[in-house]
């Protein structure tokens, strides 16, 4: 079974802090994604990566950056956390090879910015 692991289940940070959310997948997938999930808004794509060191902006990239130095790891960075970034963050991966394919999700990180 594909496993997508997010490093933290819950995080509490202060406004202005730099925050790192880590995600690791163990199935040699090409594509990795970061979504945020808010009540009533569904899942919104922040950034995605289709290869090592490659990244593309999703629908809501403002205030975020990402890093993909190794194929299995995709990090989401909040340079200066703000209260409106309080949310559930979901990492996902997919096989690649043309098209998005089936996404496999981690369990999520609930981030609270105070």
């Amino acid at each position: 079974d594909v496993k997508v692991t997010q490093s933290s289940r819950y995080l509490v940070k202060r406004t202005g802090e730099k925050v790192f959310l880590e995600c690791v997948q163990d199935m040699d997938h090409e594509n990795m994604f970061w979504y945020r999930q808010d009540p009533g808004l569904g899942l919104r794509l922040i950034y995605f990566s289709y290869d090592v060191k490659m990244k593309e902006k999703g629908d809501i990239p403002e205030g975020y950056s990402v890093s993909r130095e190794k194929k299995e790891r995709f990090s989401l960075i909040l340079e200066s956390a703000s209260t409106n970034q309080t949310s559930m963050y979901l990492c996902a991966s997919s096989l690649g090879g043309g098209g998005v394919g089936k996404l496999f999700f981690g369990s999520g990180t609930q981030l609270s910015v105070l």
Partner: protein
Amino acid sequence: GESVGLHLPTLSVQEGDNSIINCAYSNSASDYFIWYKQESGKGPQFIIDIRSNMDKRQGQRVTVLLNKTVKHLSLQIAATQPGDSAVYFCAESFGNNRLAFGKGNQVVVIP
């Protein structure tokens, strides 16, 4: 997360009955569709997918129907069980290496 079901359309169904969850998608060029299930406190889990060259696809206790004419997708769950209580999301892709998700439907199974 725990609050993902707030403000969502809710379908209440008796245990053992069939459930139908509907989804209107936005892009007529979309060529791939997926249904996900999300239980409280967990990430979304793949249920079934369908490509645009098909109208129907069946899995274990689930069937997805695609009507491209009216851009409508539905998920049918046969003999609904308490473990089917969750939020269900449809998602579409139009060949650009990404999925766009709907806002979700809450399903509540009444024992």
